[in-house]
């Protein structure tokens, strides 16, 4: 899966315009990054990447790159 495809998935769960995210985007700058988006991310990791993501791990994410790294 390409980085572009992963970014598109993240844009979809946060309902952001396509192309609005890049790896360096800080999560705290995103109004759309809230508790619902975090739960959607847990679901995405489970269904698309077969990974278990916990609430604790989510708190450690600072940038979009941190999320992309977790998807590896």
């Amino acid at each position, binding site marked *: 899966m390409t980085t572009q495809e992963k970014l598109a998935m993240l844009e979809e*769960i946060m*309902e952001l315009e396509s192309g609005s995210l890049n790896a360096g985007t800080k999560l705290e700058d995103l109004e759309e990054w809230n*508790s*619902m988006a*975090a*739960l*959607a991310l*847990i*679901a*995405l990791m489970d*269904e698309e990447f077969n990974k278990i993501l*916990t*609430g*604790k791990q989510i708190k450690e994410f600072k940038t979009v790159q941190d999320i992309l790294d977790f998807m590896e």
Partner: protein
Amino acid sequence: MINPLDLTGKHILVTGASSGIGKATAIYISKLGAKVTLVARNEKKLEDTLSKLEGEGHSVYPFDLKQVEEIEGLINNIVSQKGALNGLVHCSGIATMRPLSMTRTAFLHDMMLLNFYAYVELIRCSSKKNNFTEGASFIGISSARSISGDKSQTAYCSSKAAMDAATRCMAKELATKKIRVNTVIAGFIKTAMYDMFVGNAGEEAVNSYILGRQYLGMGETVDVANAVAYLLSDAAKFITGTGLIVDGGFLS
């Protein structure tokens, strides 16, 4: 002296007995004299529960209840090896939170498999001739969430509401067999499931939400175990087709 909660010699099947409410219930009813059969997936944890039970005749049947088609064989096995059931408590359950945008049919189905389909199937099989004794009591652990909805809980709340609805129907249908069917509608109880909820929803939000509504504070597993013991006992012989609310005031 009388003990209205006396369960001496009653054979009770408890699912989810490896953790939380199911584990506490199994231990508690063994102290009231019940012979308990423990079901869940984790055999090691079931053995740990077993080691904490009082009295004799208890046993462990490791089983994945999402294999709903195999439940009939499980019940037949248990009854032939341990005797007919005086009661059954379905504590196995999952409570995965997911926003509506990610709540696809496969996810709904997965939640229903354990929380709802397995519940109905356990009762369907246990209510067959020779599998139960007269006066048997079947119980599901439902949630205040079956009545009060929340964001990201469409699947969970629906599975518990389905459990409550089915309980009312099965109670009517099984009354002629002298079987009672009820749920316990639990509020927030301190277990692994609750810890997961806090991890996902954030401690502050949860605390203000819970302390604001559940004004008796945090529930303990023994609070639910007490309600279950009551519904299992003959003291509740006139109670069927209902949900006993044990929620520290949450729904009031």
